[in-house]
């Protein structure tokens, strides 16, 4: 394992020191490992809190700022944060309008956020509503599993819902919007290489030079199948078709198209993939209202990419375009 770290046990704490120094507009509660906004917030705004295991940067800490999250809880690498962190975050961001928790659907995350919401309500009286993202179509049968994993849609949701909260919508409206976004988005990813968790010191899974893991999870979870290495055009097909098959993206619908790098894949390749994704969408008569290409929800050093399509009406596109100022996404501000 070759990594720029001091010690696997302190990697998250060390990175939080760097994040705080790199972004003067952010604050970090180091004891609770919470990144939160240090700029002036709109009074009475619904608070937006997310979090999860570390190793997916810029998600979530890199999405804290105007028009997106108010706070993010950083767990250990690939490990859900604990309720104490979410409670600390809740207290930091509540301004009387309640708090929305954005939770990716993993057993640990869901249960820890659930306990946090119960405890925060009991301890502080703050109203907390949770929304779970579960957009990964690689998990086919959710009756017999922990359900679909939360992946790329989380990024789009945090942006869109962040804009709505900034607009002044109330907690119920913001939560409803979050569910709408999750309901209209689907994702699928593939890995060319494994990631290596610092504490483990070796790759999570073995994979040959001539194969790829189709439907991989962002923690290196197994996907749908091992398939032979393919061209970018074929990869686009393998990713887009299951996404389209899962939600009735009709001809004439517009989408926000998001090609995400898993951390070890150069931008050059993501652009090649994006073009192939666009070609397939063109063939289906699906218009692309907005695009996002880059490394936004990563899996440490894994080579690979995912495609997320979010069926977007005028409301969602308008909120997408609203100003945002975070380390990971920034425009109009």
């Amino acid at each position: 394992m070759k990594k720029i770290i001091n010690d696997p046990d302190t990697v998250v704490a060390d990175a939080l020191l760097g994040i705080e120094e790199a972004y003067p507009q952010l604050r970090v509660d180091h004891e609770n490992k919470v990144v939160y906004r240090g700029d002036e917030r709109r009074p009475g705004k619904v608070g937006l809190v997310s979090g999860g295991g570390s190793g997916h940067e810029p998600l979530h800490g890199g999405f804290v700022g105007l028009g997106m999250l108010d706070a993010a809880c950083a767990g250990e690498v690939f490990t859900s944060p604990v309720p104490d962190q979410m409670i600390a975050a809740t207290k930091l961001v509540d301004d009387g309008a309640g708090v929305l928790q954005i939770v990716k659907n993993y057993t640990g995350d869901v249960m820890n956020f659930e306990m946090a919401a119960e405890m925060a309500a009991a301890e502080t009286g703050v109203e907390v509503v949770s929304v779970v993202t579960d957009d990964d179509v690689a998990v086919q049968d959710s009756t017999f599993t922990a359900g679909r994993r939360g992946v790329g849609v989380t990024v789009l949701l945090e942006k869109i819902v962040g804009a709505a909260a900034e607009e002044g919508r109330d907690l119920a409206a913001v939560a409803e919007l979050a569910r709408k976004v999750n309901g209209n988005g689907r994702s699928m990813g593939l890995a060319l290489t494994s990631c290596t968790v610092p504490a483990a010191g070796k790759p999570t899974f073995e994979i040959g030079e001539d194969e790829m893991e189709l439907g991989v999870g962002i923690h290196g979870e197994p996907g749908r199948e091992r398939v032979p290495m393919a061209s970018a055009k074929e990869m686009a097909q393998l990713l887009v078709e299951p996404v389209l098959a899962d939600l009735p993206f009709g001809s004439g619908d517009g989408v926000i198209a998001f090609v995400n790098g898993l951390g070890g894949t150069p931008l050059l390749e993501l652009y090649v993939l994006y073009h192939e994704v666009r070609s397939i969408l063109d063939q289906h008569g699906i218009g692309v209202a907005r695009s996002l290409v880059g490394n936004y929800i990563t899996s440490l050093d894994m080579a690979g990419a995912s495609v997320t399509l979010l069926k977007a009406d005028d409301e969602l596109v308008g909120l997408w375009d609203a100003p945002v100022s975070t380390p990971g996404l920034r425009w109009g501000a």
Partner: protein
Amino acid sequence: MGRTGEHPRAAVGGVSVPDVRSWIDRFAELVHAERDRLTELDAAVGDADHGSNLDRGMKAAAAAAGELGDAAPGELLKKVGMTLVSTVGGASGPLYGTLFLRMGASLGEATDVDGPAFAAALRAGLVGVAARGKAEVGDKTLLDALTPAVDELDAVLAEGASLSEALGRASTAADAGRDATEPLVARKGRASYLGERSAGHQDPGATSVALLVAAAAQTL
């Protein structure tokens, strides 16, 4: 049957505060000794952290229990639960945390905890864990060891046996439940993503629960 403890209000024949401390200490020891094995089991079907998660948590919990001054057994169990919730994370943090928190709530501030009260507390914990994880027996989770253990504890106590004897038989039931997870296909937690490929591996959580019940049989 509790060992003789130094606590002023130790309930002889029941579960005293020192008994609970011994149980927690013993479980922490067993987890530490089996840490690598638990993590190995988790590597096969999950993310290779169950041993380190629980070891970190139980170390903290044992320390917290040791530091807590004069308190009833229920308060001690609550403290253990809170500490686990705050230090473990992942799936097992809320699950083990809920188990102890609910046991604590069930016992309240009572200082005299007899066998049936302890068994009722453990069942309250089981109900809490099932609610928290929304899992059922057969889903290949720690419930597959915890449920038969609690059932056996109730049944043996109902026969009029001592708590110590009943916990011994419950431990055997937990071990059997743990072993029975091997052929199952996981339907909850991280292992469920493996689908059919999860069969043939023993569940890590059921394995640690068997240690918890064994520790109880050895100390209470």
